[in-house]
């Protein structure tokens, strides 16, 4: 499916697709089902009244949005607007931050991933993540890719095959096939980031979260990662946080614009200002703040 076709897929079609996906893939306890958000497209992940606190500080509030299956959704906004915080809620990486607390619901195929019976390992196996700075383990290229399947106890009959498929999927195989046993630190920054993508897709996730994946890379490596993202979107649901608005415009089908505004007490809390198709956000934004941001007049 080409990108332009993807953009025209209607909400209804997407709903059908994600429904069948949920039938076949989801085995998480279904006791914590969350009703869909009104008005938002019914997607793989739906946020309902999401609110995140770091101890007493309310970092983000009132986020209602939904991420479509096999789409790229970009989260943009000025620094400190909470977009990375929202992203890290989607696979419970905020669990690792002492004092972090999440209110509202993050529904994955209708199941709240913050529900009581949910196993965080199951969540992270289905919702992978790529970080801002390439963070390969100080191990061989092969062991980096095999790490996820090994630690999650995936039943793998042929690990070599899994590693090759993941590396091919991340468009890295041809560059590294002769040096799989070499340390991953010998790779260039862009190659390391593609290795991290290969590592993430080795566990066969449905969703890949990317937190400014190109901010540490040069323009050529960035272009490669962007091409890769578009390619991956035919298989995976991708949610990307980026500071680079051209990048959001180039790769994504939907864009959410966040901003943080100080309240009476001077506390800055991030909010989702506008969430729509990328075309709409960049061509004809509804909110004046969005327009100011994307035209570079603010942030």
């Amino acid at each position, binding site marked *: 499916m080409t990108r332009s076709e993807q953009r025209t897929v209607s909400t209804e079609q997407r709903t059908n697709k994600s429904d069948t996906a949920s039938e076949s893939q989801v085995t998480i306890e279904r006791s914590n089902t969350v009703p869909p958000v009104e008005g938002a497209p019914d997607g793989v992940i739906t946020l309902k009244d999401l609110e995140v606190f770091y101890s007493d500080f309310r970092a983000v509030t009132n986020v209602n949005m939904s991420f479509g299956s096999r789409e790229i959704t970009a989260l943009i906004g000025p620094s400190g607007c909470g977009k990375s915080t929202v992203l890290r809620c989607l696979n419970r990486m905020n669990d690792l931050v002492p004092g972090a607390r999440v209110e509202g619901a993050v529904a994955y195929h209708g199941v709240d991933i913050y529900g009581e019976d949910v196993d965080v390992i199951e969540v992270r196996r289905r919702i*992978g993540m790529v970080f801002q700075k390439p963070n390969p383990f100080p191990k061989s290229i092969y062991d980096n890719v095999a*790490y996820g399947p090994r630690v999650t106890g995936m039943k793998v009959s042929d690990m070599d095959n899994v590693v090759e498929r993941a590396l091919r999927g991340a468009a890295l195989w041809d560059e590294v096939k002769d040096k799989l046993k070499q340390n991953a630190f010998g790779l260039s920054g862009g190659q390391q980031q593609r290795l991290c993508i290969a590592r993430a897709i080795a*566990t066969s996730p449905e969703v890949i979260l990317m937190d400014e994946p190109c901010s540490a890379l040069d323009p050529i490596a960035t272009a490669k990662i962007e091409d890769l993202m578009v390619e991956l979107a035919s298989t995976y649901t991708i949610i990307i946080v980026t500071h680079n608005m051209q990048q959001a415009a180039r790769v994504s089908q939907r864009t959410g614009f966040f901003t943080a505004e100080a309240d009476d007490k001077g506390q800055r809390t991030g909010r989702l200002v506008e969430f729509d198709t990328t075309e709409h956000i960049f061509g004809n934004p509804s909110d004046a703040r969005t327009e100011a941001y994307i035209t570079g007049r603010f942030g």
Partner: protein
Amino acid sequence: MSTKTRDGGRPDSGGHPVAWEGPPVDLTAQSPRIGEKIIKAVLVSAAALSVLVTVGIVASLFAPVAEFFTHVSLGEFLFGTEWTALFGDKFNWDDKSWGVLPLVTATLMITLISLVVAVPFGLGAAIYLSEYASPRVRKIFKPILEILAGVPTVVYGFLALTVITPILKPLLGIEGIYSMISPGIVMGFMIVPTIASLSEDAMSAVPLALRQGSYALGANRMQTTIRVVFPAALSGIVAAIVLGISRAIGETMIVAIAAGNMPLFTADPLKGAQTMTGFIAQAASGDTPQGSPSYYALFAIGALLFVMTLLINMISIRLVRKYRQAY
């Protein structure tokens, strides 16, 4: 003027600006900056001091050791299994046996016992503090651990002799009041803080990004610790263990008090046996006239200790290089 090029409109300069034609600037030092030179001299001498002391130790060992080996062959010293340096006539070389092996085996045996205790407990404590403990617990725990490293070794020696040995005696059937196992265990306690504290530093220095990468792939805390943090910190952990070994080999007070003064060539940890440092403590504090055979033997054993520690350090540098995982 609008046609002026970047070099001021002089096409013959080929893109480069023309040579400077104004008055020259003075770039020489405007003050002698003596303070800076003094500071540098002080720092250089501080760095040189430790090197000079090491060189001085080696040099002062050289003459007495050479004298020792004119009377005792290197083969007898290194491979002989009987050590009776303090027996018989003080100034007679020939009525004594000079085989150092009993002292070396006792040293290595006690070191090994101490490592069997210290490595698991030290690494366990390091993993707990670095990966599991909350910041608050770590803040309280680590200084306490480091206090343990500051307890005088003579206290550990008496702990071995008066507490550990009586406890082990009925359990293991130790004869007499001396054994190698008791000072070995206590020495292990003594090294735990060294290994724990240095390993914890090494593990805490592993970037958070690596842990996050591991958690994001669905790993739990133990998997992240064992498969990512531990290998990445391995060079620091090896260095911590090597420092522990060096301390154990050089430790004197504990063994002098609790291992006894009998050089005994045995692999039985329940028996007491004198170590190399134990012999040095006994001979140096006893009646050893200058120029007597046992006086020279002190230097020979000192030199052997020096060589052993040097070897361990060299091996550890190689190990650290081999396992170093840059991140």
